[in-house]
């Protein structure tokens, strides 16, 4: 299968853990590289559309499982989305990438980005004045200094 992905090797992103020890060095792959590059450079979400079932996968992956077909049609989705599931966490969590403790309470959400077929997962801003409900519209808040990783998005919040 020819990969119609125009990324060059120099486009690869390396995410490091700073002082935190990591026994693993995961490859994000060609598709993941494009996804995180767009997030970092243009604050845009990109997915891949299956040529057969038209499903749009976000984050993108190489193969549509049910169709067993490779995907190469990039589709911009979001940044607006609909909250489809959430919880508010009351116990702390150690970020495995940084070793830092996530302050509580924090929200965790499944978000269906506009134009996507799969759920995108991220933090949800906890705002006592605006308690979330399933179905509300949400938007991402980006960090100023982005490095091509998931935490380039600070969280989603009510739109």
């Amino acid at each position: 299968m020819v990969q119609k992905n125009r990324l060059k090797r120099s486009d690869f992103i390396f995410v490091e853990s700073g002082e935190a020890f990591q026994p693993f060095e995961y490859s994000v792959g060609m598709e993941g590289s494009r996804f995180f590059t767009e997030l970092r450079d243009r604050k845009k979400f990109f997915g891949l559309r299956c040529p057969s079932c038209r499903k749009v996968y976000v984050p993108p992956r190489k193969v549509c499982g049910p169709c067993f077909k490779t995907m190469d049609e990039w589709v911009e989705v979001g940044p607006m989305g609909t909250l489809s599931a959430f919880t508010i966490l009351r116990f702390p969590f150690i970020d495995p990438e940084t070793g830092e403790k996530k302050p509580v309470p924090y929200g965790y959400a499944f978000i269906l980005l506009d134009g996507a077929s799969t759920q995108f997962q991220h933090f949800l801003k906890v705002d006592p004045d605006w308690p979330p409900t399933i179905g509300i519209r949400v938007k991402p808040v980006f960090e100023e200094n982005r490095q091509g990783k998931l935490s380039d998005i600070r969280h989603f919040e009510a739109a």
Partner: protein
Amino acid sequence: MEPVAIIGVGQTAFGPNRKDRTYADLVYEATTAALTDAGLSIAHIDNIVTASNDFFDGRTISSMAVGDACGAAFGEGKSISTVEGDGAFAALYGLSRILSGSYETTLVVAHSKSSEGDLRLLTNVFFDPLTERSLGLDWISAAALQARVFFKEKNIGNIECGNVIVKNRAYGAKNPKAHIKKPLTIDEALRSPLVAAPLKETDICPSSDGAAAIILASESFAKKKSERPVWIRGMGLSADAPLGERNLAESKALRLAAGRAYQMAGIDNPSAQIDLVELSEQFSYQELLWLDELNYRNSSRVNLSGGCLSAHAWIVSGLARMIEASLQLRGQAANQASSVRRALAHGQYGLCGQSHSVWILES
């Protein structure tokens, strides 16, 4: 045993660092290569067995990350199961599924990326956490202990191992799938720096990234759909006692596994009746030790692919041996031998050959 055939094989090239590919990408590449080789589409595959190791992949249920890539989600989804261990052990599971009568075709696929994890650390956790792990043993230091005992028992040493390295590296240099494609002289092997005495750098297999897949089929399916089936005539699997509780100079598990495979295939003189052997030797001395236990004397007919000393992805290597043996039987191997009718493929897993599987394959 009812005849079961290998009707398709596929493997990625093996390399030191396939950073541009996730392990799902490697699995997709091996799977589609095997399907193309068999002239089949994923719709023809009844069920799937994957092989992986959660520790190596750095995630639990590591098979889930390759489900899409091996076709397990195709259509309404296929029956999929997983083996944590060598790919040739997964092939036994695949074989059992066909023999159950429930399936006509099974895809067996194995993957690992040595480059994504710290192998010293990941093999250190093979050891007991209370009594062994803190001493720092890993796959290389454990093998050094075995090499020392084996050398003493057989009164051999680095020269005998050097000959194995030179042979395998010469074949590997001509195998486009190999990780190390550079031949080595005996002097270079002997001058290679010590890593864990008596093991030198060149005694140790490379740590590769890669994936391999085979398609197994029932006799009726293979006869209908395959132009060049490779038939499984015998197999044996055996696991040994823990490291400190066995004689490292021998491998009872391999002897038992081979005995079972030979019996099934009607072999009483392996050296005369087996044309070619593909061995899983993680270290040069292991080729000599494993051949002793296989009672196979034609050392020049061993590892024509270059063996694990030329390419070794954990989990994948046993399946790669079955593939290289199958290609020899089909007359399509990189270093094709003449008149190969019956071949032996060997897989191992664990420290110092904890478990072994032996396969007798025929064209």
